[in-house]
């Protein structure tokens, strides 16, 4: 009985394996138009309607499973894309910062070449801190006494005058900006040559006031205001003449002295690279004085620089 069962089992296995091998060999060996291929195609033809019906009936299940799979896949993709966006955003920020630094350095280079700033022993510094209040009246730079900086040294950037040094440490310094309430600098209108004092306008941190101009001063919006190269008070630095400060926005005629509103040329909210003129007190290049004196009305501000040159240094806003 046992032997018979074993024999039958082995015979079944052997028969099926042999049958499979025969099918395999015959199918593999015959041409695509052969008998087994035809049987297979015939079977498929018969079964196709059933298969189609089953496919349609199972479509909701397939869609449901597909939806679940797609959702999981989409979540994975989303996480991946979020990481990618973060990485690209960081890269963009870094690139923009580099671009900004490059632009400022380029502007400084242009200003240097126009005003011969090199004679004032400029020290290039990076702004490392800004006053957290909304007025942005002071910034901290990464150069200090060790680099030759002293209190009251003028600070410029590629667009024009930025402020002056008010405190100096060995490796850092605090710079008071043009808009600081304590700030004042003697300036003149490039168009008429009339001189006055530029101070922050009370109540507007983004605006300056050039006041104490003679009553007969002719000024119009768009005129440039530049440093006059004279001392406005005993504590002030001697700013080199011809450094652009701002542009006239409106003229006030309500008092005995005339005053004009001036919008600073330097973008004080976005300072990155500045230069401190460490030899401003001792150096007064003759060519700068001469160039400042010969500024054509309404044309230039920066020591003989044309309006286009001013624009290229950011002074033409």
């Amino acid at each position, binding site marked *: 009985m046992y032997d018979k069962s074993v024999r039958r089992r082995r015979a079944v*296995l052997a028969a099926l394996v042999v049958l*499979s091998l025969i099918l395999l060999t015959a199918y593999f060996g015959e041409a695509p138009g052969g008998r087994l291929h035809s049987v297979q195609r015939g079977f498929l033809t018969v079964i196709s309607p059933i298969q189609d019906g089953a496919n349609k009936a199972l479509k909701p299940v397939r869609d449901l499973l597909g939806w679940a*799979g797609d959702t999981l896949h989409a979540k994975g993709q989303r996480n991946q894309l979020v990481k990618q966006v973060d990485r690209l955003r960081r890269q963009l920020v870094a690139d923009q910062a580099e671009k900004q630094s490059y632009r400022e350095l380029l502007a400084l280079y242009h200003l240097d070449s126009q005003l011969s700033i090199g004679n004032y022993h400029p020290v290039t510094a990076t702004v490392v801190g800004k006053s957290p209040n909304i007025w942005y009246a002071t910034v901290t730079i990464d150069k200090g006494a060790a680099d030759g900086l002293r209190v009251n040294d003028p600070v410029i950037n590629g667009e024009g005058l930025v402020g002056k040094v008010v405190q100096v440490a060995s490796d850092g310094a605090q710079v008071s900006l043009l808009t600081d309430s304590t700030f004042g600098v003697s300036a003149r209108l490039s168009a008429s040559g009339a001189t006055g004092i530029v101070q922050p306008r009370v109540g507007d941190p983004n605006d300056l006031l050039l006041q104490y101009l003679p009553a007969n001063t002719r000024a119009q919006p768009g005129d440039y205001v530049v440093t006059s190269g004279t001392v406005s008070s005993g504590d002030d630095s001697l700013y080199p003449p011809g450094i652009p400060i701002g542009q006239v926005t409106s003229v006030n005629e309500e008092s005995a002295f005339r005053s004009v509103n001036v919008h600073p040329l330097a973008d004080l909210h976005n300072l990155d690279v500045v230069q401190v003129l460490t030899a401003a007190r001792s150096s007064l290049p003759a060519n700068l004085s001469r160039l400042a004196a010969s500024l054509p009305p309404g044309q230039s501000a920066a020591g003989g620089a044309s309006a286009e040159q001013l624009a290229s240094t950011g002074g033409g806003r």
Partner: protein
Amino acid sequence: MTADSSLPLLVRIAALAVVAVFLQIGVISEVPVFGVSVDISPLLVCFLGLLCGSVLGAIGGFAIGLLVDLLLLQTLGLTSLIFTVLGYWSGRLRELRDPQAALTPLLVGAAGSAAAMLGYSLIEFLLGVDAPVSLELLREIVVGVVVNTLVALPVWAIVRRSLAGSLPDDPRRRRRRAYTTGGLSPLSRA
């Protein structure tokens, strides 16, 4: 097992095989999991062998393989050969060891899936299919085995439930009988 008593079982096996193959082709193959598709057909063959024995396992494997080959226009006999061996092997496992552990279907499913995939690859290479052996192929095989293993227990439950009542020698029934027919009960020995 007489022809009359095995007829319901054969009908159930045939119905289960047809439904499973259509389900595999129509739905399961179109839903990738971890980049591969679950293949329940080797699991079905293994579990048929595990429940019905080596002869029915081999016959079921051959039939399911033939159906798959016919429906998918594959090389005729290829899947039949692999599934015949698979069904026979799992049937013999039951006949020789009669494993009752809860994880048996999981292990049998994993081993069966791995054997089927390796068997496919081996025969395809023997037939001269121009596919380079690569890490990607190995990865697909490994992931496929893992995914099949994950679904082995649910498939086992469905197959066993579908065939329940028609099985020639249900292990549970056999155990119950062993304890109640004298001679084998631990109580009777005492």
